[in-house]
């Protein structure tokens, strides 16, 4: 019996597209040299808010990517709901003791969105009053969560991210996971109304389990001037090792945009419209959180 022979089904012709090979070490090294030259001579651009795209693209995003792809295995859904151009306000739930969720959402919108959108986060003033952290947050494109900054960014056509729960969300005990906290005073809705941009509700599942907060050392928090001091099963018990987040499985889902332009900018001063929109956004996020939780087989897979 002759040998079995392998023949191609499509001889010649339409070859399936092979993915472009990753750049060789030579190109990578050359790029690194160029990057270092730019950093040493200050030959890069920053904007009025202190955003440094060069640093973000070449240092911060590459550092976050392994966490995004391998550690948390983030799956993004509904990216078609985020516009390719123009301003929009992404409103998301906040959790995880340390705001890792905001960083992962930044990677998701840059790497997975076809238009590679920049995510301009709004942060609490505690972030900006802390040395190092404040300066770094600005370089990543964040700015203070105040209406002036939010409106200015939205009018400039930026994609702005806000976590209206704030510290109440990120520092809530593990037993309250996936229940949304109070949504502030609806300041984010007035900013969207004044700028006339859509609100994109965003649900993030997985961040709750990275540091399950089982206790809060109030005295330590007061001494350090922090809103809370987390106690997790591994921190501070295992010291620095306890700072490694648990490898939970993440989903980031963007919901259908809620249009605000038809209300007109004057509606920002109508508390009824603002409260209704705030509730609508909050309920949408809570609903999609429950849906995503049903999709997830277990916390870690």
């Amino acid at each position, binding site marked *: 019996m002759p040998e079995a022979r*392998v023949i*191609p089904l499509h001889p010649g012709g339409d070859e*399936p597209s092979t993915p472009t090979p990753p750049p060789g070490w030579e190109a990578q090294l050359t790029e690194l040299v160029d990057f270092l030259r730019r950093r040493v001579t200050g030959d890069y651009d*920053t904007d009025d808010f202190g955003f440094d795209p060069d640093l973000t693209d070449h240092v911060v995003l590459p550092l976050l990517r392994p966490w995004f792809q391998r550690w948390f295995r983030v799956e993004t859904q509904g990216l078609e709901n985020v516009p390719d151009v123009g301003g929009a306000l992404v409103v998301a739930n906040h959790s995880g003791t340390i705001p890792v969720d905001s960083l992962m959402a930044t990677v998701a919108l840059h790497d997975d969105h076809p238009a590679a959108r920049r995510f301009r986060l709004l942060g609490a003033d505690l972030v900006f009053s802390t040395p190092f952290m404040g300066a770094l947050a600005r370089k990543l494109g964040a700015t203070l969560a105040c209406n002036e*900054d939010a409106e*200015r960014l939205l009018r400039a056509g930026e994609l702005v991210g806000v976590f209206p729960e704030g510290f109440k969300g990120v520092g809530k005990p593990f037993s309250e996971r996936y229940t949304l906290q109070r949504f502030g005073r609806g300041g984010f809705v007035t900013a969207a109304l004044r700028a006339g941009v859509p609100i994109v509700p965003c649900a993030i599942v997985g961040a709750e389990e990275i540091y399950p907060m089982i206790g809060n050392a109030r005295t330590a928090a007061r001494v350090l001037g922090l809103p809370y001091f987390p106690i997790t099963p591994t921190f501070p018990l295992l010291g620095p090792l306890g700072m490694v987040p648990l490898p939970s499985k993440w989903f980031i889902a963007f919901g259908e945009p809620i249009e605000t332009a038809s209300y007109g900018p004057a509606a920002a001063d109508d508390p009824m419209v603002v409260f209704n929109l705030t509730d609508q956004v909050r309920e949408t996020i809570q609903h999609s959180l429950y849906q995503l939780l049903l999709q997830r087989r277990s916390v870690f897979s």
Partner: protein
Amino acid sequence: MPPAVVLVTGVSRWLGGALAAELATDPAIDRVIGVDTVPPAPEVLRRLGRTEFVRADIRNPLIAKVIDSASVDTVVHMNISSTPAGAGGRVPMKELNVIGSMQLLAACQRAPSVRRFVLKSTSAVYGASPRDPAVFTEAMQARQVPRGGFAKDSLDIEGYVRSFARRRPDVDVAVLRFAHFIGPRIDSLLTEFFRLPVVPTVLGYDARLQLLHEDDALAVLVRATTGDFTGTTNVAAPGTVLLSQALRRLGRIAVPVPSAAIGSLSKLTRSAGMVDWSPEQMRLLNYGRVLDLRVLREEFGYSPRFTTAAALADYGRTVAPVVPPELVGSVAAGARTAVSRAATGITGLRAAGRSLWPRTPDAPLVPGLRAVRDL
């Protein structure tokens, strides 16, 4: 209607002298009177042209006589000191700034000839705190009211000018809130600071800097003096740089200092006579401050010729960099050629290895589906 008699205070400094010199070249203006406590330096004096210099202290009621006898119609107040050493200490500085401005305003209020008042103010009135919005418009106020020093003085002076405007509604008042000045000729905090080979910065903070080129500052002052703008406007160049970035562009070496040590360091450099700066100014730099330019462009009607980056580059021509960019460039180019040489070397080695030990050629890869045929 252009002004007939202009009085400029603080004429012995670079910007005041430049403004007086510029106004003196305008034939529509009859007289330009420069006032200062110290006589101008010879090179400033040479440029002043037909400007009449009056050595007077604006804290002295004598200033009222000058305004009256010359029937001044436009007053440009620029005699505000930003550093304690320039005025001889914090107490004389406050006296010159606040009491001097009050005296000048009192004199103007009594003089019926005055119909225009221009104040050179500063963006420091917006204060500096982590609660600040990124960009300030003229309508915004300091989130944390500055408690002392230059910023407080400037806030007080603006307050006195506002009440002067209420008492003399017939006088047009223009308040110009300037960003940090920079340029090859002007003497400002930053120009002195950036000349240090090793520049102290506050550890853990990186300010957004918005600058203003001296030529633009002069053009805005001339326009404010001869034009008809009333109200308050921010004056700054478009665009920003980070403090760290500015230092790198100028080839300076930044030395981050813990904020607690800034005070003693400033005393040390001041006593060594190197640079005169106060820790308060350093703290103003911590968070940075960016100004909205809509009023300047649309209502005042001026678009700065220099962006912040261009103004910095123009200033950079006059300071020799400690780390020359050419050196960095040649090092980078050297590294790049080394990388490509190593790459060709490695490919060459691989090719040599292959010719020495020829491997059996790999079976050709067939992409996609494969069918097995049974014969």
